[in-house]
Structure formats: structure tokens, C-alpha cells
């Protein structure tokens, strides 16, 4: 097996790994870097459970090659909380019971954070369309949307103060 050596940053930390050229970033994160917060729901970019940010852009890590991460910054759910404090989105998801089985939750948190970074005051419709790439089978999305609305409010307040 010929491997590709990759140096990248994950959640702010420098990492280095060797992987086959055909291996996905999702498999690298889960199996080589032990970041199992990234989930495989489909492997074909249809469910969003593997969502991460790549240089700030929301992507399905199952559609990115491990080799493509060379020199780039990856953000996963594990990087959401800072200094032992939960991110307002994480707190809102718990407070609003926006998860049942929780398998889609990491993907939703990464996607929602990406949305609020671009649009701090989204309408219900904007939230729904921005999250349309993340499948949830348990909740019917109701409490997820409410949690995102609530977190957005908290984050706007935090920014003002």
C-alpha cells in the first residue's frame, strides 16, 4: 500500500497521518485520529452525519479525501466546546430536547454553527433550508429548529455584550 502523508490542523491542533490515497477524510478522522464524533450514516454525502468544516466551509467528510486535507484546518463537533464550556448550540440542543437517539446531532451542530457564522439572525425558513443536508429520523426536526433559533438569540446577545 502506498500511503500519502498529510499534515493538517484539527480543531486547532496540528496532526499528521498517513493514509491510502482513496481513503475518505471521514475514515481518517474516525479510524486514524479517533474522532468518532464524526458519524457515517451513508458514505455517499446524502445524510450529513459526517459534516465537518474544511477551512471554515461546511462539507461532508465522506466526500473529501484524507489527502485533500493537506495544509488545511478541519473543524469537528469535538472542537465546539471551549475551555470546558459547552457552545450555546450544544446547550440549546440539550435544553430543547432537540435530540432523541443523538446520532445526527454532531452533524447538525457543525452545520448549525456554520449557518450562524454566515447568518446570525436566520428566519425559520432559512434555518430549515440550511439544515436540509442533515437527515434526522427521530425528531421530525421541530425541536432542532427551535434549538437553533434559541442559540442564535443567545449568540447575538453574547456578541453585543
Amino acid at each position, binding site marked *: 500500500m502506498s500511503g500519502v502523508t498529510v499534515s493538517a490542523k484539527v480543531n486547532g491542533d496540528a496532526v499528521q497521518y498517513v493514509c491510502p490515497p482513496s481513503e475518505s477524510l471521514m475514515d481518517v478522522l474516525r479510524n486514524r485520529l479517533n474522532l468518532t*464524533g464524526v458519524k457515517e450514516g*451513508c*458514505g455517499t454525502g446524502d*445524510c450529513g452525519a459526517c459534516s465537518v468544516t474544511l477551512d471554515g466551509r461546511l462539507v461532508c467528510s465522506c466526500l473529501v479525501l484524507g489527502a485533500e486535507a493537506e495544509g488545511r484546518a478541519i473543524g469537528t463537533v469535538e472542537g*465546539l466546546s471551549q475551555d470546558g464550556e459547552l457552545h450555546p448550540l450544544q446547550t440549546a440542543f440539550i435544553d430543547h430536547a432537540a435530540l432523541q*437517539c443523538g446520532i445526527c446531532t454532531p452533524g447538525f451542530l457543525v452545520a448549525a454553527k456554520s449557518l450562524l457564522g454566515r447568518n446570525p439572525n436566520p428566519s425559520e425558513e432559512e434555518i430549515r433550508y440550511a439544515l*436540509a443536508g442533515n*437527515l434526522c429520523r427521530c425528531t421530525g426536526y421541530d425541536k432542532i429548529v427551535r434549538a437553533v433559533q434559541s442559540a442564535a438569540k443567545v449568540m447575538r446577545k453574547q456578541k453585543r455584550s
Partner: protein
Amino acid sequence: MPYETDYTNQKFSVIGNRVNRPDGVDKVTGRAKYGADASAAGQLVGKILRSPHAHALIKKIDTSKAEKLPGVKAIVTGDDFPDFTGGNRSLMDTLENCMARGRALYDGHAVAAVAAVDAQTANQALKLIKVTYKKLPHVTDVDEAMKPNAPIVHDWIRTAGVDPAPTTASNISQRNEFGHGDVETGFAQADIIIEKTFKTEQTHQGYIEPHACLATLGPDGVGELWVTTQGHFTFRNMCASLLGLDVAKLKVTSSEIGGGFGGKTHVWMEPVALQLARKSNRPVKLVMTREEVFKATGPTSSTSVDVKIGAKKNGRITAASAELRYQSGAFPGMWGMLGAMTSFACYDLKHVKSVGYDVLCNRPKVAAYRAPSAPMAAFGVESVIDLLAAELKMDPVEFRIKNAAKKGTQASYGPVYGPIGIGPTLEAVKNHPHMKKRLGKNQGRGVACGFWFNFGGQTCTDLNIGIDGSVNLTVGTVDVGGSRASLALIAAEELGVDYDQVRVTIGDTSSLGHNDTTEGSRGTFSSGMATIFAARNAVDVMKQRAADTWGIPVDQVVWEEGVARAKGRQNSNLPPLSLKEIAAKSPRTGGPIAGHNEVVADGAGVSFASHICDVEVDPETGSTRVIRYTVVQDAGKAIHPDYVEGQFQGGAAQGIGWALNEEYIYGDDGTLQNAGFLDYRIPVCSDLPFIDTEILEIPNPNHPYGVRGVGETSIVPPLAAIGNAVSNAVGVRMTHVPMSPPRILKAIEDAQ
């Protein structure tokens, strides 16, 4: 000493509070471990080779080239699974479904498996296995499979439930009949009769987490299985039976589960992982791809249903009958039976008859999908109810109220109902603000009712009080939707402590006695009941410790709000002893304090729901948008309202997907065409509005808190609620689910 199960209408301190779930932080930080998140040193990767044919003889499997590939450590086929079933046909069906024995029965049926050092090598090895197939005629449609000249799936099947017993092979594995009275008499009394046939296509539970496990099994017959499952005890029993192991030597640990809805109540590949582990003597991690999940696990039935209902001009139904045909995939099931039982369960009927058929075909082995078989039956029945109401120029809700089952009604499936919620949910719907909203152009409104039984089952629970008074509650029912929070609330209520003082764990199979699977809406109901009794057991122990400390008889001690008090004037000088104080003293008063309970939780109450749905249909494209949805359901007692609402909303969303979009599409060659989330499209966030919920509480008289299971009923009404709404929006009766855009356009066209 057995504890009383009767409803006591007590006042609650913590039950009903919307507390934060105890596993919330784990799940929002990615720390929670699901089926594919565990790894073991030296593990191998397992992969399964699957039949590309709908029906074929397996003439030969040549694994020689694959065996020589460096890195391949074990290969298994059907020959590697000796028959330990002892003639138990149901066990053999499961075994044969996990690994074909001479014949591939559906597109995706497992025919061989490998364990190798990594996924690449395993996949390469699969390509090197040469299987020689001889294709056989196949059948995938339920009605086609019942025809006399249909290709036979199993030549040993003789239709059960038919008299005289047939002597020739059939794809109809059983016939079941339920009802009472005489429908011919009833129909003769009717002023109007409506008769119609409906069809529903196959859908999958669609859990986002594929099946996954990590298996070890040594030459000493001792093994471990980490697995995503709804029932780790059931999986243990099943794997032990199939592989000839002692139950106690196979430790099964339930990972967090990423959705199940009935699809993870059954083993699909776990025995294969264990056998690969045994053959290679190394841990084997086996994870299904999404395509495998669609092709080779347990979707729900596709069906064909005839419904006939007669009523008098005053709106009272005089007779109702249904014939329901459910395909069970390549192995027999009891889905037609469940459909026949549930069809008319919402109504008070003097003359009723339902006949259910289970039919084999070359599709994957059907498993339960949330209130299995009920949604399809409800689609037919609730559509005909609407047609009758329209014909009689009666309001559809009023018509249902007039005929609703109530306490004392003999259910169409046999038992007499106690206090039930169908009437109250209909009254709540009638008065709901949703009904008053004005509809616009191309919009239609539909209502529908639904029913599901709940199950109790075997349950075993341990409650241990720590030295500092914090409490460990170990239960054996897998937490699929948030039940840990509810169970902690129950323990806290019984002990009189704060919710945060209780820590709930799902114990592995070595830690507890048998617990039945989390299905049948039983998780909170049965583990809740066992928790109540385990806590009362612990309270009895603590009262004794207090009595011993005070030197008084235990019948002078009461437990109130988390403290032991000495009753009676002669004891008025004794200060109360809190749980914390008793726990701190426990090493000196008799050792660790615990409560334990095993129970077969009887008396599960039935749960009824009524739904309202508004849709807008684009007449040019046939595309349907759900603009408003309301669920009203009876929960008996909502231990944690957030999670009860969550069940209502989740079931409704699955029903909406089933009603409008989801279906298994088979080619003429009998292979599945849309085995992925792109073409098997489940609802996404932008498809749905907020889903309003109203929780009713008509207490279940057979549970101390009045709890009814709620997890399943809310998937039952949506097919019909949407069917009625779409039919009202386009002016044409819809009879085929899913009501996808091409079907709606065709229905409109055919009507013109």
C-alpha cells in the same frame, strides 16, 4: 413481596418536569459511543458478499483465491454454520437469513463473509470469491405472489390457519381472522356501503446509524459482542442459540443506538461477525453500508388492502370488514395478523371481520417498523371512513366521534377496553385551533385516527445507593429515545431525592437478568414499573436501617420526601433520618443498600391518537407540501413531556415521508433500484413545518403512575391523514401510498 401495579393517582414532586437528559452532554460533544465507535486491539474488518440476484440456486462458492490474499484471516459461508436450531423453524429462518444455505432468496442476501486486516483487503477478498449462481424465477409484488402460478419461495410452506389444511406449497404462509358478530347481517342493515382497495409500498425504518458490531469469540466458547441494538438480551439469546453457545458466556453490551424503530430488534449479521471472530480468533468489526441496510435488513411490508364499511344514514356504522395482504419478504412473519388485529381497533362495532394474509416473496425479511402493520390498515380504513362521512354529508370528526370505541367496547381484535383515549383525542381535535384555520387554493385538510397496543414483558432492574446518597439505577431496556431521563425521574420520585442524584446506566447482559427488547412502546412503561418497585424495595431496606438505628419496630417507620420518620407520640423525640444519612451509616448497619426487581410488566395500556394535517398540492407538478400538522395522543401519564412530544413528532414525520415519498422500487429483474438516501428520500428539515402536539392523560389503571407506552402510535394516522388531505385538495380519492408527484398527477388525469 409483590408490589401493587394499580394506578394510585398520587401527587408528583418531580414526575412531569422537563429536566435535561443525563446523556445529553455525551451526545452533543461526540463523546457518546455508538455501534461503529468501538475498536479493539488486533481487530479485523468484516465484510459480507451478497447475492446480486432476486432468486437463485447457489451451485458453488469458490473461496480459494480469496483465502490466499495476504491479510485475509477468515472466510465463512453457509457451510460454516452448523444447525443448532433443534428443528425450530423460526430460528432456522433467522440463521438462513444471516447467511444463505444453498439458495439466494433476495437481492442482497448474504452468501459469504470475510474478515481481513483492513477494509480495502476485505473488499478485495470479496471480489475474489467466485459464486456460481443458477437464476430462478422471482416474484416481488404481494398480489402477484399470491397467484396460483407464482414462483414459490419455499416449497415447504403450507398456508396455516386454513381449514382443511392445504397440501400444496404456497407463498401464503398464514391466514388470520379476527372479529365478532356477523358482517353479512350488519351490511344488510346499512343504508350506504363503501368498498375500496388500497396499496402501500415498502418502506424502511431509515435509522441514520447503520448496523454495526464488534465481536470476539474464543475457542472456549466465551465471547463478547458490542452492538447497536434495541435488545441486547434478545440478541444474546439469539446468537447463543444459533452458534451453540451458553447464554451466560456471551456478554452483549448495547452501544448507544442511532435509531431503531423496530429494525434493530432482530439479528441480521451479528452471528456472522461472531463466527468470523471464532474462526480467526481475533476481534471482528462488522459495519453495514447504507446500501446493505436497505437491501439486507428488515423493511416493513408492502401491502394490498380491501376495506368495506356500511353505515346508517344517522352515521352509525353497522358493519366493517377488511382483507389485508402483507408481504413478509423471503421468510414467514405475522404482519398480516397484526394488520388484521389493528384495522378497526378505534371503533365500537357490533359486526366486524378482518382477515390478514402473510405472503412470501423475494424481498428482504420484513421486520417491525413502529406499530408494525397498523399504518397500512389505518390508511385503508380511515380513507373509507372519510368517504362514508362525505357521502352522509357529516363532518369527518363528528362521524368518528359517533363511532369511537370507549370503555366497555369489545375491540375488533378481542379484548374489552378499559378507559381509553380515542374519544378524548377526537374531542380535542374537534376543538383544536388548527381546525379553524382557513384553507387556501389547492389546499386540503385531513384527519385520521390511530391505535397501537403496548407490551409489558420481562424486565429486571437494580438500584444501588452510594455511600454519599447518590443513586445508581441499572436497567436492561435500551434507551432509544431518552428514557433514561424518565427512569431517573421515576427513581427520584419514589426515593424522594433530586433528579440529579440519580444516575441511570443500561447494564450489559452479565449485569442483570433477562430484559425483553425495547419495542412495543414498552421501554418507559416496563422499566419504569420495575424502577418503581426496585426503589420501593430499597426504601423498605432503608426503613429497616432507620428502625434498627432507633431501636423501634419497622412498622413505626414511614418514608416521606426522602427521609425516614418515626411515627407515633412515643417516637416524637427521634429526628428524621435522610437518605444521605442512612447511606453514610450503611457500612455499620448492614452493608450496601440496594433494591432489585424482576417483573413481567402486565397491564400495558393501549394508546390512541388523532391527527390533523393541512397540505397544499401543486396541480402542475403533483408536489405536496405539508403546511400544518397536529398530533393529539393519549400518554396515560407523561413522565417527561419533552420526550413524549418527541415521540409524537418523530412518528408523524416518518408517516409523512411514507405517505408522500418513500418506497422501495424494484426492477423487473427483482433487484432494488434505490438503495440509498438520495433516491429513497426521507423528509428533510425544509419539508416539514413545526409539528404541534397535545398530550392527553387518561391514566392506565394497571400502572402505578398511569403510564401508557407512546412510542409507536403516532406513525399510524399520518398515511390516512395525508391521504384524506390530498384527496380533499385535489378532489380525487388517493388509494396508493406513497402519494408521490407522479401518482397524484396520474390520479388527477385519470379523473378527468
